[in-house]
Structure formats: structure tokens, C-alpha cells
């Protein structure tokens, strides 16, 4: 049976990719809560908590993630 695996190094690699692809100009223009949530997402990759920080549903936050050009790395 197939199983997903996570290696310790994966986390920093994923964070580097999110930082590199992110549209920082777009992020800087956002209101404080949204900006904080996007930065939290870049650092952690945790969509659920980021959406709670932004005060949005997960799907609304996911749309914002795409607008900010932040890839979901997993």
C-alpha cells in the first residue's frame, strides 16, 4: 500500500520554495491581518491556521494564497 512520507529536511525546503515564489509586493499591500496570515502561511505551510488568522474560510484563504503566488508545497 502506498504511504506518504515526510522527511525532516522537507520543511525548510518547502519554506524556501514558498518564500522564493511569493509575490512580496502583493503581500505588502494587504491589510495587516491578511498580510500577517500570508506571512504565517509562507513560514509554516499551515493553511488552516493561516485562514483563521485572516478571518477567512480555508477556501477564501486558498484563493488569496494563489493571488499571492505562494505555492502549496507537499
Amino acid at each position: 500500500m502506498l504511504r506518504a512520507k515526510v522527511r525532516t529536511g522537507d520543511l525548510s525546503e518547502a519554506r524556501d520554495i514558498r518564500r522564493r515564489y511569493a509575490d512580496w509586493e502583493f503581500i505588502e499591500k494587504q491589510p495587516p491581518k491578511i498580510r500577517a496570515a500570508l506571512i504565517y502561511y509562507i513560514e509554516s505551510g499551515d493553511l488552516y491556521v493561516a485562514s483563521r488568522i485572516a478571518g477567512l474560510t480555508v477556501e477564501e484563504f486558498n484563493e488569496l494564497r494563489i493571488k499571492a503566488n505562494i505555492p502549496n508545497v507537499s
Partner: protein
Amino acid sequence: MYRSTDFAIADTCFLIDWVRFRRRDLIFKLFKTVFIPESVLREIKSESTVMWVALNLASGNLALYTEVFDEVEEARKITELSRRLPGAISVDLPEALCMAVGRRRGYVVLTENRGAIMFADLVSDYNDVIVWRSLEVLLALHMRRLIDADCNNLSMLFREYEEDTKHIFPERDLSNGVEVLRRELCSKN
């Protein structure tokens, strides 16, 4: 007669990406029913996502999973334990609930959450829980020959998924997966 692995339970993070995929209905070739916890319904808003979920709930491809008290309690314990284990990535309640259901009922857990994947590896009670990301779902579709694989371009479906969802598969995981597909599906021997 169905096996428990004919069923899956998907968390919100998996589902909202998967719904953007142009070949999203392929998932129903793998699973008889994909359960979605009630909390997922609170997290979807766009017309296209809500419509896809509603139509598939109506046809029985998707089904609502209403959690019971004991499952929520187990999920709380998972979130606490994930924060106590050295080196573990924390698990939030929504995916913890899917892990609890996966352990109790044998459903495949569909999530992109790395904490949940790691938890299944680290905690012996959860070692038997099968956790898949979209990457494993796409691999399984190939392995079970539910889609035609193009041996000259085995990464095509994965690239389509990345394009539609702005999701990036870790390069090493993707190349390992494609290598397995090449061996299993395209080797002449």
C-alpha cells in the same frame, strides 16, 4: 463486499486544492465514497466548489461524515500529543479528526498536512493509518491502471495538477514516484 480502503476521508486542505484539478472526478475511480467531515462544508464558499460538492453528495460519490464525541476527543489527544513529541509537526483539529477516523474505521486519510503524515509514522497506534496526499492519489490512479499512462511523459498528470492548483510536489517525491511508475508500467520485462 467493500474493503475499508474503498473509503477515504478528506480534510479541507486536500479537498479545496483537489476541486481545482481539471480531472477531479478521477478520485471516484479510486474510492467508492469519499467522506467529508461537516467542518469542510463551513470552509467552502465558491460556487464551483460548492456545486461540485453538492452534486457529488447527491450522487453518493461524497458523503457527509458526522463525527461523534469519542472521535473529537481522540482528535484533541492527537493535537496535544503532536505538540509534545520531539521533532513532530503539530496537527490541527480538522486533520486530527480525519486521523482518528482513519484509525477507527480503516479509511484512507486524504490530507496535505505534513503533521498528519508524520504522526502516522511516529505514533505506533497510528502506524496502520494510510495517509495520502494528492501525489499518492495520482500515483495510485496510475498504479491501478485507472488512467492510461503515457510512458514518454509519466509526469503529465502531476504537472497538470500543479498547474491547476498552484501546488508544487517536492521534486524528490515526484521523481521517485515517476521512477516507480516507469518500472511498474513501462518496463518491457
